[in-house]
């Protein structure tokens, strides 16, 4: 599909394709991290289902990721960095490392991240929860884990940035990053990259690109090489197809 006529959204099927790509590439480039795992959703009504749509109905999880001492070093590919700044930071005040609070080094925080497809917005949505080493859930505003710009936004946009919502598959309160602008900036992300824009919408790249932006909100970074290698391999693959 042509990027200019694309609305920045995914179908459920495309989501499952993009999810598999993310999980695969993540394992390849981040072998030391916990993996992204595809969890097929429980058959919602306990019925035998022969319907194709259930094969793609599920979500991605990355659990027990230990984050300590503030956000990890951020390596951002330039385009993602720009888009990120545009969306999540005030123009005059970029992330200022000097203001980062040193959290107690002995205090480990564990994060569970889930990427769930929203049928309403037709985009992926990031859900997460934080807990201490003894499994005790932690409240986000009491933590100093988040990058400074997220902390700031959390105060300014208390109700529209990150809030606790019911996890669509687990029916329990989880933190959720609000998805209402996602399709718009995904379109921006794809159309502002010349090589991508030329090739049309490459579905396999969607979740990786998306996570390279939203991951920064919670200090989860995607290795630069992952995005770059995937991009070039997908693009050359398209080129061969075209040729």
């Amino acid at each position: 599909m042509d990027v200019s006529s694309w609305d920045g959204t995914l179908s459920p099927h495309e989501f499952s394709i993009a999810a598999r790509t993310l999980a695969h590439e993540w394992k390849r480039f981040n072998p030391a991290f916990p993996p992204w795992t595809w969890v097929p959703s429980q058959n919602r009504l306990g019925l035998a289902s022969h319907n194709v749509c259930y094969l793609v109905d599920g979500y991605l999880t990355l659990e027990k990721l230990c984050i300590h001492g503030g956000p990890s070093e951020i390596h951002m590919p330039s385009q993602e960095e720009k888009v990120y700044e545009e969306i999540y930071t005030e123009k005059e005040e970029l992330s200022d490392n000097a203001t980062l609070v040193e959290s107690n080094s002995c205090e480990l925080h564990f994060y569970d991240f889930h990427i769930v497809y929203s049928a309403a917005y037709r985009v992926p949505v990031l859900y997460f929860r934080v807990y201490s080493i003894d499994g005790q859930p932690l409240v986000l505003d009491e933590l100093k884990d988040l990058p400074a710009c997220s902390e700031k936004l959390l105060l300014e946009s208390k109700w529209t940035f990150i809030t606790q919502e019911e996890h669509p598959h687990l029916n329990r309160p989880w933190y959720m990053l609000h998805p209402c602008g996602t399709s718009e900036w995904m379109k921006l992300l794809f159309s502002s990259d010349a090589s991508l824009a030329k090739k049309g919408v490459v579905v396999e790249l969607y979740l990786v690109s998306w996570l390279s932006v939203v991951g920064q909100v919670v200090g989860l970074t995607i290795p630069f090489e992952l995005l770059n290698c995937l991009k070039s391999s997908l693009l050359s693959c398209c080129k061969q197809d075209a040729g």
Partner: protein
Amino acid sequence: MNMEALKYVWEGSIPLQIHIHESEVTTVPAPPPALILAPRIGYLPLLASRIKPYFSGTLPPGVDTIWFEYNGLPLKWYIPTGVLFDLLCAQPERPWNLTVHFRGYPGNILIPCEGEDSVKWSFINSLKEASYIISGNCKNVMNMSQPDQEELWRSVLNGNLDGYLRVSSKLKLGIIGDQHIAASHLNSLKSWQSIGETDTTGQVKTGRVPVRLYVWCVGEDFDDFEDAPHIDAWEKISYINQPVEIQGEGTLSYLEHPSSRSKCFTLGDALKFLLPEYFRENSLIDEESSEAKGENEQKGSSEDAGGNVRDKDGEGLCENENSFQSVEAEIKLVRIQGIEPKLEIPFSWVVSNLINPEHFLHICVCVKVPQLTPYAM
């Protein structure tokens, strides 16, 4: 626009009898229960200002965080009160006996509630979601002026339908209906004429309808909802938050509708779309029953829409049962705004008349699910 049904929805309320939990009573005798009328379209925490003075004298020292339970089930405050009642009280109980708590908020089950602000933003975020579904973006909601946003919320709080329509019309979220579908109502069901016309009066046309579907699965059969098991855990409810895509004629023939009369997209079609697992080859709407009912339905619906006048619960139900037999499961009940609409009703009518103010249609469904067959394991 024909507002009769919408007015009933807005004026509908549930009589509540609210007991304070015994663990929070420090006085003898314990205060008697409070009787209060709760608007269907409202949310339980919004009753706090009326309930709290009543019980404040008996509370132990501490910080108040209000929450409610019914038969041991903590009630999700972000679901409209009328929907909770329809869902959890299959056999309507009046007054509805709820227990209020001011301590010990079950934060592992319910998302936190910081009073009216939480409720308001939950409402606005739902409105944004609905707007996105209908028009592909939520700018109209996000760019609302501060006074408009406030007025919209006040109108919901106070049940002021006129005020609500004045502001919400600026959002251009006129739900539903595809001219073609509206027109086909005119041809197929004469009694829907006025509604068909309503739908074609310059509102935004759309194929996607915001729906929140609550499916209560029961294992064993029962003849009467009085004998139905209590819902004691949210796990027994499947919550499906998925827009309904209204489909034209072509898609309906795919669904193997045998008669041309049913070309109009019905409530039954919407349920088929949301719950495809119930509607395989053998599960077709009983076409005969859709005949010659139009007039009664419209009358019945608007009469019952208030929720206070729902006294013939069994009636529509029996027909639904017969018409939605499937090998695997059986839909025992479909309830929207306290009424049990016939499944042959055009979906566009259901949406325009029975939606909640955040532009979502909340549908409660009770399904009898047989035990899993061995091949399913």
